[in-house]
């Protein structure tokens, strides 16, 4: 029974820590990048950001159809409705080239984020 009690206490502690952490928090000085999408093309096709700081991509979908912004390496997947804007939060990254694409038009609609 003492094992159960210990486990229950551990769970309660974990739950409390999680709840405390869920409180909304502001991102620390993120790099903001503007990106637009039209006729299955990203503009600009290559964007860059400094390493080790959070990145915020402001994406404008100028097409009338929905698209899905996706990057496997950045762990991002976001549906953007036709003719609307979206905000995509990307956590701080190590230097490198990170490809992204529109999942609905993966072959043609591609771009990359270069982190320096």
């Amino acid at each position, binding site marked *: 029974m003492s094992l159960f009690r210990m486990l229950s206490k551990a769970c309660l502690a*974990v739950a409390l820590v*999680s709840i405390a952490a869920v409180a909304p928090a502001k991102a620390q000085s993120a790099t903001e990048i503007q990106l637009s999408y039209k006729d299955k093309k990203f503009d600009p096709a290559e964007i860059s950001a400094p390493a080790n700081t959070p990145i915020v991509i402001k994406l404008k979908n100028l097409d009338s159809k929905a698209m899905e912004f996706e990057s496997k390496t950045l762990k991002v997947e976001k549906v953007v409705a036709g003719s609307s804007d979206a905000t995509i939060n990307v956590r701080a990254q190590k230097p490198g080239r990170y490809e992204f694409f529109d*999942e609905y038009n993966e072959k043609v609609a591609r771009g990359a984020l270069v982190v320096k």
Partner: protein
Amino acid sequence: MIAALIIVFREVFEAGLIVGIVLAVTRTVPHRNQWIAGGVLAGVLAACVVAAFAGALSNLFAGMGQEIFNAGILALAVVMLTWHNVWMARHGAELAGELRAAGKAVAEGSKSLLALAIVVGVAVLREGSEVVLFLYGVVATGNDTGWSVAFGGFAGLVLGVLVCMLTYFGLLKIPTRALFTTTTILIALLAAGMAAQAAAFLEKANWLTALDNVVWDSGWLLSDSSLLGKALHTLIGYTDQPTAMQLLVYVAILLITFVLMRLYGAPAKRGAPAPAE
């Protein structure tokens, strides 16, 4: 056509796995087919609604509506899965035994079925809305490739159903005695994985910033966007770059399930050996 097949299959794959598991879990429960089918249907309808209001949903919570919505429905599925496991720990024996036909067991059984139908609905809803948006986009274009894409999408859907059936019949191959333990563990891992995924969505929305350091990167070994990685992602919550918070949430859900099953599990059955120990 192939592109459409791949996109649709990728989206329905996860739902297929989950529905297969739920079907195996509920194999002895009366009227389970109606409930599961109802869950799938409700999921499809909800997916259409979500797709129709994708823009409005996105704009909620300062542009983080999608992330919060995903985290919310995942959390709902976690609660339902955990509740099912705890409920089964108490009533599983009656349900599988002679009492199955008794009115009470049926009534009780439908509570558990409701929980699992919600899980199925959520799984279909999450991936389904993306399929709806994709197919709608293609059809709205109105050129003659529309039919070819629709056919590809349909083929992808059939493959998803195949995944569901393979999962179901694969699990049924397990002897009945071991099946209960197996599905209990599967469901606990499924719930823990979904909870970690919900944490990831909250991290993307910047609602959860504590412990957001990446603990390891096993992408070189098994990328979570490969087919095997994706299957493991759904089944046990595998991700190649987990944050400390995701790991914490994962372990917490497993612990909570274990403790609740112990506390509320069948009290008079101490005689039976517990294989989990």
